[in-house]
């Protein structure tokens, strides 16, 4: 065995890699369970890949057969129901885990220097995931699949001049139809591999700048501990808790994440009473609808996702640490989270009278959080420096300010 490893090591940095990136990888000892969600995201990605590959063995990407083939999977394929529910629940689990992962990044300011690239690769991952989920949702060829794809592809008609052509190009025809289904299936199979590659890039970036930690301070070497066994076991325990929730849904309420309307086969002649996207798109959908004209709505929706990328520059405070030492930032964080839930609620309901106004106000709050951040963060910095901070934080902050000069 030893000889074999030596043989490999002479030709490939196996031991070095495992030591460097896993067993001895220095990790801040104070990481809380909120730092476990990245690992969970990787785990769900694997679930989605494996179940997806098995689903594709039985699924028929043909508008006449797709819906029935899903029922074939549910009823005739051995444990087909399990594979399908793991996959449909897995999609929601993926977004839940990623959103928590992002919320942690926001709260602790983990996107700040020097982690900008880490944050942006994460953004890229989110966009890829959204595209994958959107295309995957067409595949069961239910009513909501069909009309959701129709509404969303139609948004591209907002592109100046060539808008209509783009919509036709995306759909492979004038309306969502068989060509749309087959190309979405093909892309839905491809994208997870792009996600896997992007995840590797995300990890390389992470291992270059190292994990942030709850204190937000750069830790000295003695505060770092090897990833294995401390965080392997911590992450595995977190995984156990995650699986209890995930399997609870898969086995006891799997249709929780499936809209009843999607159990009706797609019917191009009949629009459902209201077209509601999956829960993970609801806040963005609410923003889309809050702006009265199509182009404005599409731009607002795109911005609502992309604006996160600007955070490292919008947050101009040099106080070390995330929300812990920053009362103003902390308040903004909580307002923002509540606002997202409000937007989600609005997105799930027809935009009538009061809700319409609520949606508009919540959209305004959403964007003002970002736009006010440069001013509030600087003001907060001055205020906190005057009032005094814990010594270590003060020192780090002063160093930051020096460096910035």
């Amino acid at each position, binding site marked *: 065995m030893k000889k074999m490893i030596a043989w490999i090591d002479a030709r490939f940095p196996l031991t070095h890699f495992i030591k460097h990136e896993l067993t001895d990888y220095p990790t801040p000892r104070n990481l809380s369970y909120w730092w476990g969600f990245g690992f969970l995201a990787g785990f769900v990605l694997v679930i989605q890949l494996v179940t997806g590959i098995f689903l594709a063995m039985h699924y028929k990407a043909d508008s006449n057969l797709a819906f029935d083939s899903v029922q074939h999977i549910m009823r005739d394929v051995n444990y087909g129901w399990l594979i399908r*529910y793991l996959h449909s629940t897995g999609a929601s689990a993926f977004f839940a885990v990623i959103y928590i992962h992002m919320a942690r990044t926001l709260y602790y300011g983990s996107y700040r220097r020097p982690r900008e690239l880490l944050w942006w690769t994460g953004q890229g991952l989110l966009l890829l995931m959204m595209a994958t989920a959107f295309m995957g949702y067409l595949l069961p060829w239910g009513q909501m699949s069909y009309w959701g794809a129709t509404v969303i592809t139609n948004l591209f008609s907002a592109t100046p001049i060539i808008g209509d052509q783009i919509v036709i190009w995306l759909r492979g025809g004038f309306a969502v139809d068989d060509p749309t289904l087959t190309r979405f299936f093909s892309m839905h199979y491809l994208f997870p591999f792009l996600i896997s590659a992007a995840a590797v890039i995300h990890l390389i970036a992470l291992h270059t700048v190292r994990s942030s930690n709850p204190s937000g301070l750069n830790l000295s070497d003695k505060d770092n501990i090897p990833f294995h066994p401390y965080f392997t076991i911590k992450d595995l325990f977190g995984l156990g808790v995650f699986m209890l929730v995930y399997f609870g849904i898969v*086995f*006891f*309420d799997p*249709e*929780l994440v499936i809209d*009843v309307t999607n159990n009706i086969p797609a019917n191009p002649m009949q629009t459902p009473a209201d077209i509601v996207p999956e829960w993970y798109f609801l806040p963005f959908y609410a923003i889309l609808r809050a702006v009265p004209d199509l182009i404005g709505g599409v731009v607002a929706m795109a911005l609502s996702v992309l604006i996160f990328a600007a955070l490292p520059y919008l947050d101009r405070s040099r106080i070390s640490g995330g929300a812990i030492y920053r009362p103003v930032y902390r308040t903004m964080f909580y307002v923002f989270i509540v606002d997202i839930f409000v937007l989600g609620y609005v997105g799930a309901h027809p935009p009538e009278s009061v809700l319409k106004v609520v949606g508009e106000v919540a959209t305004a709050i959403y964007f003002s959080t970002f736009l006010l951040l440069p001013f509030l963060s600087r003001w907060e910095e001055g205020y906190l420096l005057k009032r005094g901070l814990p010594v270590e934080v003060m020192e780090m902050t002063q160093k930051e300010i020096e460096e910035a000069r």
Partner: protein
Amino acid sequence: MNHFRLWALFASLACTMNGTALAAGDKAAILQRGAHVATEVCNACHSLKYLKYSDFLKLGFTKQQVDVMRGDRNMGDPLIAQMAPGDALAAFGIVPPDLSLMAKAREGGVGYIDSMITGFYTAANGNTDNHVFPGIKMPDILGISQADPTSRKALLVKAEDVSTFLGWAADPMAESRENLGYAVMAYVFVLTVLLYLLKRKIWKRLE
């Protein structure tokens, strides 16, 4: 999202604790009676295409009983409607929707079907209408709008039977899924507790 199912789960848990849950035998009897109503009444107009006649064997019917239900159709055949879709379209102005996934395709599921087929009444103008689905093109097939109080009671039972059966038809794997679920949850729970203890033990080394 189908919040209804979550509530149904809580309700059934509550019933289990109250001891009001149906005994397994009762449930089997209901499903068998419902299967009769579905094949003898509903299947005249509606298909239940995701069910095969052989699926009835899973409900405890004997092969002979299923032979009677299927008539000249084969054991492996899906339950397509007795009435040809074209004839149905001519008669009702709409092809009656497939029923085998219906309990998952409406908000409210089984409860919705039950209240819809018992929701027929005679309106002031003498026409039959439906409380749950006004203007429905399906006739009052159980005759609930004409029923007197005694016959009504029997019809309500019939409606509940067939709705329960349609609930099964939409999710025939539910029972095996939940049974497997208990085992998986127990396994993961024990595993998680062990992982937690191990985590505590390993992290002690740092002190």
